[in-house]
């Protein structure tokens, strides 16, 4: 055996050994990675794109300031809601991508995250006698409650003067949920003035313009208060929203993809079955058609699969249904390299060369075609990856990335694994029939 072959064999053995170590067991911890990273379509969850209405922003703030603030608040809300590893990114100028992997309560999470949650306090307008006025339907007429702040300016009392420690409590007598909040110093100054002038009158508590409750003020209150009139979930969400602060601008969902976890689990099962059947068919075909060389290709394919899985786990590459499809297509590419070499090799054997010479010539000639033919796939992958985000579907990027990795790896295994295995087999087995050529 040539020294270069020995070294190559050693290198491949180490690489395959390392890959097996990395993926067995799949759920085992290797370099902090456990199991394969699954996309939303396989594990369930939500992929949301929000658009911010920047025309409603505070003119004194820049777009970047507003967006950064909104992003931070969303992140705090998602974490407080208990989403594991949410992904929150700004897209373009006024969009926010929110991924909630594995989240089951998507509707609720969506509402919690995207709601502005501006808490406002309003007082009733009073008639000449000082009694609250009502409209034709007997409902109070509300006006924003204001007070004079520490700097002498008149200010509206909103949720922005709250300390970030609002919490849900249960009313002692009825067990109904309520949200307890505390004002910061400025809020306390305003609240004191407002409660003082509204004693024995209702004070309206509004969330995003909707009246939640209107307790009657019994005494002058400075620092704290409660909000009632909600069910448990609403109270919990409100507490989270008050603590994260209200969003600076309203958001609307412009793109949504939600997948139920059971569908994801189904998809995984199905693609594993389909992948296994596909690989078995390919191996059968290769061995039937190319005989000995087919066995080599099958072995190369298995090694390719092991290294690919290790890359998926360690990088990690997020697997989606489209990614799995790309993996399957890349199997074709990986086998393609072998087919190119074998076909060339057969021609050389027919031309009467010795086994060893045929392998070398077959490989050298096929290599140019292998290299050239994959360039176009790389081009397609790069363009797709580049535009992937603007395509609206998270599938696109996953497909492009997986195909790129698969094709690159298939070229690598072709010049290392296939070549080595083939030259080793050629030395051991000389019967040309076994390589698909009549003796």
């Amino acid at each position, binding site marked *: 055996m040539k020294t270069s072959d020995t070294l190559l064999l050693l290198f491949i053995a180490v690489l395959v050994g390392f890959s097996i170590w990395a993926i067995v067991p799949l759920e085992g911890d290797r370099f902090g990675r456990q199991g394969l990273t699954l996309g939303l379509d396989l594990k369930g969850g939500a992929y949301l794109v929000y658009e911010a209405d920047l025309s409603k922003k505070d003119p004194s703030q820049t777009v970047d300031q507003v967006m950064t603030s909104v992003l931070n608040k969303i992140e705090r809300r998602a974490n407080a809601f208990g989403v594991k590893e949410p992904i929150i990114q700004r897209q373009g100028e006024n969009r926010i991508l929110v991924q909630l992997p594995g989240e089951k309560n998507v509707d609720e999470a969506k509402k919690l995250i995207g709601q502005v949650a501006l808490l406002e306090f309003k007082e009733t307008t009073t008639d000449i006698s000082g009694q609250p006025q009502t409209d034709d339907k007997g409902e109070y007429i509300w006006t924003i409650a204001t007070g004079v702040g520490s700097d002498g300016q008149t200010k509206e009392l909103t949720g922005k003067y709250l300390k970030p420690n609002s919490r849900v409590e249960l009313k002692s007598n009825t067990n109904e949920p309520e949200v307890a909040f505390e004002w910061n110093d400025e809020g306390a100054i305003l609240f004191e003035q407002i409660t003082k002038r509204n004693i024995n009158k209702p004070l309206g508590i509004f969330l995003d313009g909707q009246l939640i409750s209107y307790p009657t003020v019994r005494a002058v209150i400075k620092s704290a208060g409660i909000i009632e009139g909600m069910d448990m979930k609403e109270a919990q969400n409100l507490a989270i929203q008050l603590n994260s602060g209200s969003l600076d601008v309203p958001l609307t969902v412009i793109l949504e993809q939600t997948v139920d976890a059971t569908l994801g689990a189904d998809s995984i099962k199905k693609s594993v079955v389909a992948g296994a059947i596909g690989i078995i068919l390919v191996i059968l*075909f290769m061995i039937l058609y190319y005989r000995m060389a087919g066995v080599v290709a099958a072995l190369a394919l298995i090694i390719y699969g092991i290294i690919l899985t290790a890359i998926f786990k360690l990088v990690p590459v997020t697997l989606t249904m489209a990614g799995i499809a790309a993996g399957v297509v890349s199997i*074709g590419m990986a086998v393609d390299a072998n087919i190119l070499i074998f076909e060339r090799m057969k*021609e050389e054997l027919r031309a009467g060369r010795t086994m060893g010479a045929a392998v070398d010539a077959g490989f050298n000639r096929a290599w140019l075609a292998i290299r050239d033919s994959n360039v176009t796939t790389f081009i397609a992958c790069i363009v797709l990856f580049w535009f992937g985000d603007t395509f609206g579907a998270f599938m696109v990027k996953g497909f492009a990335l997986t195909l790129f990795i698969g094709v690159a790896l298939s070229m690598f295994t072709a010049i290392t694994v296939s070549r080595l295995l083939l030259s080793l087999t050629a030395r051991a087995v000389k019967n040309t029939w076994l390589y698909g050529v009549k003796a």
Partner: protein
Amino acid sequence: MIDIVGNRKWFFLISICLLVPGIISMLAFGFKLGIDFSSGTVMTLRFSQQVEQGVLRQQMAQLGYDDATIQKTSEGDFLVRTRDINSDEKVALIDGLEKGLNTDVTIRDLETVSPVVASEVARNAAIAVLVASIFMILYIAFAFRHMPSPFKWGFSAVIALLHDVLIVMGIFSILGWLIGYQVDSMFIVAMLTIVGFAINNTCVVYDRIRENVRKGISRDFAVTVNSSILETIARCVNTSLVVILTGLALFLFGGVTIQQFIMALLVGVLVGIYDSIFVAGPLLVLWDRGLKTESKAA
């Protein structure tokens, strides 16, 4: 020896037979666009009790969704497509279905695309296709730079590609009104992958022609091309066959989520086989003959 090049007019005729119905369908009916291009909401609904498609349609109409399209999947779920609806509308719809049909409804997956996004996706997809095409043509020009007339080779390769793309698009247009197949961003992805594959195959054939021209195996260009095609036929068919085998496994057992995508790939690969054997090479000969007659005339 099988004479592919000599019988090229028959193979071109087959291509035309494949092209024409699709082109007519595209012109007359266009495509059934996916929601990522045309906006809307698609849901996969699973009912706890068996529900007839007609009954579901009626109930949807009663709830104000009379233009909804409803398809039953092979797994017994229903694929329901409506205009784009928000969370509240969705809750009301599911509620209405549960009460009206007296069954539990689970949303297995849901996708909503607003019109703003849809128009952008359509535009970006067009740009992506354009950019990819430019780079691929540049690559083809680069790959054939040593040929006596690189333009001829590159141009023939591009025509062969357009041939593949048009046939697949035509078939999808027909499948659109036959069984509701949609053209969406994943279809574009499939097309770009097919183009990658087809260039790949064409490159292998042309590469062999180039080699045989250098070797000087025949004075007649047509004969050289024909034997080059025959020499590479096994490789082209086998490579594509491998992709078809794995693709078919995914199509049959891989679930409905990516079925249309896999279908596009499969059709594309099949057309690609045909193209690399019967179209790409003969086109070169046609072009060559055409030029010669021209130069004689001049």
